[in-house]
């Protein structure tokens, strides 16, 4: 182990928090020590030590967990595996190995430079591969290539047997296949600690992409126009966006407070399925649909383009440059996050709820956004349902709520208001009576486990929201029973032990 940092160590305060400063909620629930590990052997020893001492281990790779799964661990041990961060490519076989502490930006750099391949994972440079891949991991290339966990061929994982002994396992489709399946989407749900991800094959990285932002005149937009905008966006992914020749197109429509210079716009990345960006027909076809809303074009982050210039003239760039340019998410702030999968376009009722919330003057409206991520494409290959632990394979959009603030004293208000907004969006005749307040029904496909939201725990059926309405959750409980019989690896939203065990 590189270091054991206890509460008296001067490094403790700096290492305690992840990105979300809400956690730990108080000094009383902070871990007793933080163990820094830079090898799988380190992790094994630290884990064995914790288990033998009866202390709860929690794990952190990149520190982006949205809920209190890592930093909140009263008296326990936080295993910080951010230094376990190597990315290697076998020169002969081109097989890739990614350690969980590697951040996505570094993963892209290493895979691209060594093999010209990439992982269809998230856009934020500083997100750690560990939690991201194990929970599914999607990003700008996922419509083209699927989820990052879809490409997994094996993992090294440490589990703890019934007697409390740590076991090293190399699991794949032949060795511990059930555990391997669980790690392909539910790997953060409480089975063990993954110390390496293996990919025998990864998609070739695009050569270049078109990347830019589009803004809309939000302040003057009427409710009808806004509804039209959202349905235009949603209709595309529900119809034309299902065609494979569009899968290189990824867009996020972000809605924030409706005010002067308020946020309503799209971020777009495009490449053709072959990884080039020569034929922009699909892109222009998509953009044409939004001409009626008075778009303004700019670079990433909304930098305005020159008037009358070709809006895309500065948007073409090498893929690696685009993939490693988003350094957002590196800071620390208080935040709350929610998610929902959508299988269809946006309804007028949904658009109305969003419009009215962001036209209001609540502090949460000023501090939050709801983003509509394009989804589907290669993600929705039905054969992956039985091979992975991702149940959502029919959605065409994924919504994410993000709310940020500074002061701890404001926590209750932001949490309450965002929850109320979300609940209102999923309440009404479009959701059946037993599931009001949640994205449940024909138009929805639940929530994303990598955007965990502890508010959903108040619904007894929360596992069905995250793991689908089929038998996946029961399967995961069996895996839990087999590989973590003591429930060593647990957090607020981990897979629950089978009843009676």
């Amino acid at each position, binding site marked *: 182990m590189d270091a054991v940092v206890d509460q008296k160590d001067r490094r403790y305060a700096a290492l305690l928090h992840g990105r979300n400063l809400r956690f730990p909620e108080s000094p009383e629930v902070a871990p007793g020590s933080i163990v820094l590990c830079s090898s799988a052997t380190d992790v094994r020893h630290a884990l064995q030590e914790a288990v033998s001492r*009866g202390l709860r281990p929690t794990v952190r790779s990149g520190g982006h967990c949205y809920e209190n799964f890592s930093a909140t661990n*009263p008296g326990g041990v936080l295993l910080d595996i951010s230094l376990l961060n190597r990315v290697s490519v076998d020169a002969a076989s081109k097989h890739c190995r990614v350690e969980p502490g590697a951040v996505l930006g570094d993963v892209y750099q290493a895979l691209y430079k060594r093999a010209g391949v990439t992982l269809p994972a998230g856009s934020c440079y500083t997100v750690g591969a560990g939690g991201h891949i194990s929970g599914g991991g999607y990003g700008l290339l996922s419509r083209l290539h699927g989820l990052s966990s879809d490409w997994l061929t094996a993992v090294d994982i440490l589990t703890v047997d019934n007697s409390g002994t740590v076991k090293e396992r190399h699991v794949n489709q032949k060795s511990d296949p059930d555990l391997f399946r669980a790690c392909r989407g539910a790997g953060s749900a409480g089975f063990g600690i993954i110390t390496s991800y293996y990919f025998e094959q990864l998609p070739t990285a695009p050569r270049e992409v078109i990347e830019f932002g589009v803004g809309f005149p939000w302040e003057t937009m009427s409710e009808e126009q806004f509804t039209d905008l959202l349905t235009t966006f949603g209709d595309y992914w529900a119809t034309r966006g299902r065609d494979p020749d569009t899968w290189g197109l990824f867009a996020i429509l972000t809605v924030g407070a409706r005010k002067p210079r308020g946020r309503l716009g799209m971020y777009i990345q495009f490449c053709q399925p072959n990884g080039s960006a020569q034929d922009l027909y699909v892109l222009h076809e998509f953009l044409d649909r939004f001409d009626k809303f008075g778009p303004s074009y700019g670079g990433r982050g909304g930098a305005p383009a020159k008037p009358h210039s070709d809006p895309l003239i500065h948007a073409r760039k090498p893929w690696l440059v685009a993939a490693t340019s988003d350094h957002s998410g590196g800071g620390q702030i208080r935040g709350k996050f929610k998610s929902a999968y959508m299988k269809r376009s946006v309804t007028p009722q949904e658009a109305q709820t969003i419009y009215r919330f962001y036209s209001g003057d609540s502090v949460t409206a000023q501090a939050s956004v709801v983003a509509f991520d394009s989804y589907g494409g290669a993600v929705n290959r039905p054969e992956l349902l039985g091979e992975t632990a991702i149940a959502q394979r029919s959605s065409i959009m994924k919504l994410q709520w993000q709310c940020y603030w500074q002061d701890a004293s404001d926590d209750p208000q932001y949490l309450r208001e965002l929850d109320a907004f979300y609940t209102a969006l999923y309440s009404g005749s479009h959701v059946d009576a037993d599931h009001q307040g949640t994205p449940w029904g024909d138009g929805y496909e639940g929530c994303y486990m990598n955007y965990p939201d502890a508010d959903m725990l108040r619904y007894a059926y929360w596992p069905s929201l995250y793991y689908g309405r089929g038998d996946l959750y029961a399967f995961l409980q069996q895996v839990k029973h087999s590989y973590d019989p*003591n429930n060593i690896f647990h957090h607020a939203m981990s897979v629950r*032990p089978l009843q009676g065990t």
Partner: protein
Amino acid sequence: MKRRETSPQLSRRDFLGGALLAGAAATMPDLPAFTRAVKSQPAWLHLAHGGSIHTFTADAGSLRFLGATPIEDFAAFATHPKLPILYVARDCAQWEHLPRGVVSTYAVDSGTQPLRLIAQTPMALSSTGPRSLAVSACGGSLLVASSTGRAWNALALDASGVPGPVAVTRKDAGAAPHGVLFSPREALAAGVDPERERLTLLQPASGGLNILARIDAPHGLAAMTPAWTRDGRYLIAADRNGASLSTYAVDASSQCIEHLHSIAMETPVQSVLMHTADGVLTLRTEERGSVLELWRVTAGGLQRESSRAIPERALSMAASSQEDGMLWLATEDRLLCLPSLHDAEIHSARVSLKSRTARVSLAHQPMLS
């Protein structure tokens, strides 16, 4: 054996039902005959049964039913040694939407609402299935054995007996913690794990819970709370299925626990309690009732000093920790009071229990001035 009943005509339902109708604080008309003979020091009796805790006062003048307090998911209770506080561990599947049990803290008084909820403190995350809880003799710590959660939980108690907000936990792989009891002499507890068949010495510490020593029980362990001798030197635990009793020597200073000897029992032990200065009391069930036995504990073995047959099946027992040495037994429909094991008298009062069940717990709590 002479047996005195307070009122053979009074039905079980009448006893508590009448009390409730007449006002919970009212003394039952037949009770003075029962209690006049009982020279007990003032105390509360808490009887957990059928989803409620029935609280009584018992003193030299009267046994009085105060009231029944509904408790959901009752698992176990324990009294504070110095304060009128009762702690109840609740085996709820989840608390505030998280899988864990909860400890409810009640202030006890002799009014019409004998138990007043003053705090609800969740156990650590995943600490489900509490089976017993114990409070240290100094009143500063509370321990909970969490069976399905495979963990021990510790809560610090403040000067008013209220638990701190955060439980610290020790996960015990492969274990199913069941019984836990503090030494009467120090902040040191013995925990029973019938799954791994071992005894554990636990000590709450600042921000943690230390395991001082462990020993594998040579004859296994029953899912039962052990008993300390009053000097804290010996620990007596029922072995697997209660078929025998084992004695362990505990040396807190050297953090050592050692098995001394075991003795087979005629029928399975149901409960074991600290009683006299150097003795423990056991309760066994036989075909026609129960047997109470007083054992003197020495380094050389357990010596049976006396025994007493009870012509009813006792489900739970409690002993006064005061000088009066009073014993209380709960049967399916009665509270029995034995001034001492040697006393020929058994005083009983019928109690109205809502449902017939073998799950009855009894606690005795002195009213300390």
